[in-house]
């Protein structure tokens, strides 16, 4: 039986899709049969980040409305075995998503896959609520910034009340905090909230910390999930995150500010 993980945040632009792609890729690299679903109907992005935008024929809405089969709509990742992508529709809107339709798709996928990663749209409306409704676990993506923290707090409230697990009084959705775009230098300078403050306000388990990194933008534009870039700090940080999702104990990295040495400043080196 598959585990359903929703990647969500409330606020837009914090790195949900990047994280969904990176986590799904990381799980597949670890040998888990994984499918990642784009729930952002109307603003399809996941296919770009996964580098499969030229291979989209059918999408989630087609499947829900019975116009295509799941196997026709799912795209097999070219880089990793075990990884599939189910894209969103760019031409429909979120009203085309129905709870019954989503449930049926997830139930069918659950028979074949180990992990189903749901990439939630921003906001707290229908699309976001359906993305989280059937989840077993949630990765709440948060930037070190007050508005992002408040929106994540809001999403955590919804996870505790507007999910199937909450409505059926089952064990609650397992909530994980993923802090992205963390810049230790700016945290030290007081421009950004620090890790401890975010963790204290949201009061959930910290699953990972992704440093602000040029590698992420590069990966997005190339359509290669950053997890493949194991030379980069962000790629390594996502691998750590996936390991923790799988229950391993991995020490936290990249959260402390290391002053650049004179030499690296002179030669423009340093971490990427």
């Amino acid at each position, binding site marked *: 039986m598959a585990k359903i993980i929703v990647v969500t945040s409330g606020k837009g632009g914090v790195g949900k899709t990047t994280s969904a792609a990176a986590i799904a890729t990381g799980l597949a690299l670890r040998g888990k049969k994984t499918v990642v679903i784009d729930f952002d109907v109307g603003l399809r992005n996941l296919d770009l980040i996964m580098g499969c935008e030229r291979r989209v024929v059918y999408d989630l809405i087609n499947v829900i409305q019975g116009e295509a089969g799941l196997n026709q709509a799912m795209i097999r990742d070219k880089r990793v075995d075990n990884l599939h992508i189910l894209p969103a529709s760019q031409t429909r809107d979120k009203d085309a998503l129905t709870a019954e339709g989503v449930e049926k798709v997830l139930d069918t996928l659950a028979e074949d896959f180990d992990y189903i990663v749901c990439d939630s749209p921003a906001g707290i409306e229908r699309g976001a609520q359906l993305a989280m409704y059937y989840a077993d676990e949630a990765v709440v993506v948060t930037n070190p910034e007050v508005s992002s923290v408040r929106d994540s*707090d809001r999403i955590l409230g919804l996870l*505790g009340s507007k999910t199937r697990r909450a409505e059926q009084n089952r064990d609650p959705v397992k909530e994980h905090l993923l802090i992205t775009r963390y810049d230790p230098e700016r945290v030290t300078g007081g421009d950004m909230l620090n890790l401890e403050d975010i963790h204290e306000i949201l009061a959930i388990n910290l699953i990972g910390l992704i440093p602000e990194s040029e590698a992420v933008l590069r990966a997005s534009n190339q359509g290669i999930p950053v997890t493949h870039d194991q030379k980069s700090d962000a790629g390594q940080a996502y691998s750590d995150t996936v390991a923790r999702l799988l229950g391993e104990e991995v020490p936290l990295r990249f959260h402390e500010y290391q002053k650049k040495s004179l030499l690296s400043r002179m030669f423009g080196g340093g971490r990427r």
Partner: protein
Amino acid sequence: MSLNVDRAGNAFSFKGGMLPMTVMELTSADPERIREQLVGKLNQAPAFFQHTPVMLSVEKLEEPHLALERICAVCRSHKLLPVAVRGGGEPVKQSAWALGLGWFPPQEVRPRSLETVTPAPAEEPAPVATPLGSVGSRIHRGTVRSGQQVSAADGDLVVLGAVNAGAEVLAGGNIHVYGALRGRALAGIHGDREAGIFCHELHAELLSLAGNYKRLEDIDPQLLGKPAQVRLDDDQLTIAPLA
């Protein structure tokens, strides 16, 4: 203590009062049109027209001069008793006074009074919150998150966790927060002036006791981030460190 100690020696005393008053908002200054409409109304609801005092509001009219005397006569002949006029310029004021009527300045659209109004509840209470009207005290375990509302309408509310920014906790009695209070806390919502708010770490967006409130901006910064208790002393919210 009372200012009216020597009651026997006084012919009267002034008292403030708020009385319901029918406002007749004029959209036409033509006495004939007013009369026609009054005839229709009188047939519909004769019980209403029993020398009912009314306030004539002329705020919607643009004419500087009004046939106020004729308008009043039309009203009186239909058993409405104009007692005052609201709005209009200097000529309207003078003719109102000449007719023995009171005059009020135009009603401003002003924000509701800062000190006595209970803020409206959050627009969308989360399902975890008990609806207002639940009986007795209540213990909430865990963090109250942004957008959630938790209330104990008829008793004390105890929160074992934090109340985050954007969250709202309400109680008919006291509120105890065993964690950081970053959201809004409204105690004594039915007017209990003995109610208090107690928290481990004060960062509240809003503190309200029996309708009297303080915003985060009004709180002494020295008290922030520390254990605190909030009480009502003579309509003033008093915040003190919790020893």
